[in-house]
């Protein structure tokens, strides 16, 4: 009896979320900018992650062409201030930058979902403690902490990811919190509750799947923010350090060449802007697609 109820409920959930997903993609397709952004991002990631296998030049190796060579067949974007292939560096740098963005996003999703879901689901003390912490973190200009933390603790990639994640999970927690509150009231959750299922199980099995779309939206926007933060801390010399290229540190390094070789700065800057723009458009599009109020007639 109990088992059958559960399977019924879970299949119902599956159907429901499937429908939602379908309609989500469908609605997203209506928003041309967001839809284009989605495709653009797919292409961008493919280029950045697969590109280095095709363009196998070592991004750290000094080329025979020398420093600041202009574009040629051998070096499509020329060489940088030390004589390294800019194209290879853009590909490898993009890899690192996007990976940092993704990793920071995943990590902050983890924190944010945990905090938000627990607060919303368990209520009472958990709720007030978790949500007060979230509010407090939101109220603090966290860039000051990012700065102090990275200055004193060093700038390994892991540290950069952790620090960015720790400074950006609050928005997600709030969204998840609100959604959890909403879904907690639904019949199938209450039914599961009544049937004596464990809280953790209800949370992971019934509630979290429902809020995945909102999490995707927040995640998309968080990647955008994380990439921007990475480039900002790189600007202050606190990001991932050379010789590992990232768009952020390439941009930072190019600053000194702003007079003599502005192209070195324009490329990574434009790459960051375009990637962030695409993630933001996609996130906005997804949010609009999810929000019934904003559905176009």
């Amino acid at each position, binding site marked *: 009896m109990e088992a059958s109820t559960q399977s019924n409920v879970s299949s119902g959930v599956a159907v429901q979320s499937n429908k939602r997903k379908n309609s989500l993609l469908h609605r997203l397709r209506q928003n041309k900018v967001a839809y284009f952004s989605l495709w653009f991002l797919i292409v961008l990631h493919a280029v950045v992650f697969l590109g280095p296998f095709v363009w196998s030049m070592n991004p750290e190796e000094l080329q025979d062409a020398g420093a600041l060579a202009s574009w040629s067949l051998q070096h499509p974007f020329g060489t940088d201030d030390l004589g390294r292939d800019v194209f290879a560096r853009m590909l490898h740098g993009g890899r690192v930058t996007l990976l940092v963005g993704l990793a920071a996003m995943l990590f902050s999703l983890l924190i944010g979902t945990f905090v938000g879901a627990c607060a919303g689901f368990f209520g009472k003390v958990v709720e007030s403690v978790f949500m007060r912490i979230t509010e407090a973190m939101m109220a603090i*200009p966290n860039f*000051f902490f990012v*700065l102090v933390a990275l200055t004193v603790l060093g700038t390994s990639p892991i540290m950069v990811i952790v620090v960015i994640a720790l400074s950006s999970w609050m928005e997600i927690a709030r969204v998840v919190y609100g959604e959890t509150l909403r879904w907690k009231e639904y019949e199938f959750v209450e039914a599961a509750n009544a049937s004596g299922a464990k809280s953790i199980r209800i949370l992971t099995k019934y509630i979290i799947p429902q809020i995945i779309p909102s999490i995707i939206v927040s995640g998309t926007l968080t990647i955008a923010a994380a990439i921007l933060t990475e480039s*900002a801390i790189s600007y*202050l010399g606190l990001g991932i350090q050379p010789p590992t290229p990232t768009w952020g540190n390439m*941009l930072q390094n190019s600053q000194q060449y702003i007079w003599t070789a502005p192209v070195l700065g324009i490329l990574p*800057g434009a790459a960051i*802007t375009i990637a962030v*723009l695409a993630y933001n458009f996609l996130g906005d599009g997804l949010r609009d697609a999810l929000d019934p109020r904003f559905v176009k007639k």
Partner: protein
Amino acid sequence: MLRFLLNRLGQSVVLLLIVTVITFFLINLAPGGPASTMRMEASPEERQAMIEKLGLDQPIYVRYIDWITNAVQGDLGISFTSSEPVIQRIIERLPYTIELTVFTIIISVIIGILLGVLSAIKRGKAQDHMINFMSVIGLSVPAFWLGLMLILLFSITLGWLPSSGVGSRGADFDLWGWVSHLILPVLILTTTVLPNIVRFTRSSMLEVISQNYIRTVRAKGAKESIVLYVHALRNALIPVVTIIGVLIPRLLSGAVITEAIFGWTGIGTLIIEAARGRDYPLVMGVTVMITIVVVVCNLFVDLVYSRIDPRVKNV
């Protein structure tokens, strides 16, 4: 009302305390304390002398207790790097950040509300799309890259605006010198907050427009412009007040980068100097000061909001 206020105040104090503990222990984790900031040439004895002089040979919890005891009495200590009181160093720099942020708030609130309302009224039309598009771009461009490009254009190529600095403030103050130094930093900082205000105003306005009383006013045959600007906007602006609370931390974070780009000698550059120089008292001082500013702003917003919307009191 009083209970609400006390409750909030209590929370703020706890928050402040937590922030100081985290920051204090964080900076003290750093490999190489202030003694590593000395010249490479400094001998081990010189470094040891420095450590003892600054009392860094004490256990960390003793130092924290010392620090917090003094801080509660309003004494934030002496800066390691300049031997001046931390308070004094902050007071020297604070006006510049205030100047920058106040101009930014004024400009971005005015422009942001105008664009937000416009966007809401023209919902779904070209203007709305345009404004929305520009907002996303504003949110997506790395501030320092934009700053660099503007410097390239206005300072290097055209030579119209200074690329850095705060202008002279002393006897040889001149208005244009002041304004010209402000333009680019305020512009950059504005782009980091403007999109938020636009979006917030837009959704707030949309919500109000869809409400019943607006329909009633409209049905009574009032002029559309009166409906929008008198009835709708007035009510839509109420929640916009709250965004100031969200804006302040964002603004201060943005100020760090903006100040770094333009050599603006405010709190942002001060915290960078302090962290790099391992000036523990100064890092603590700036952190406390920033947190207090933010807490006070939030308290103020809460207060204003609770007067507008009595339901909040029970939170």
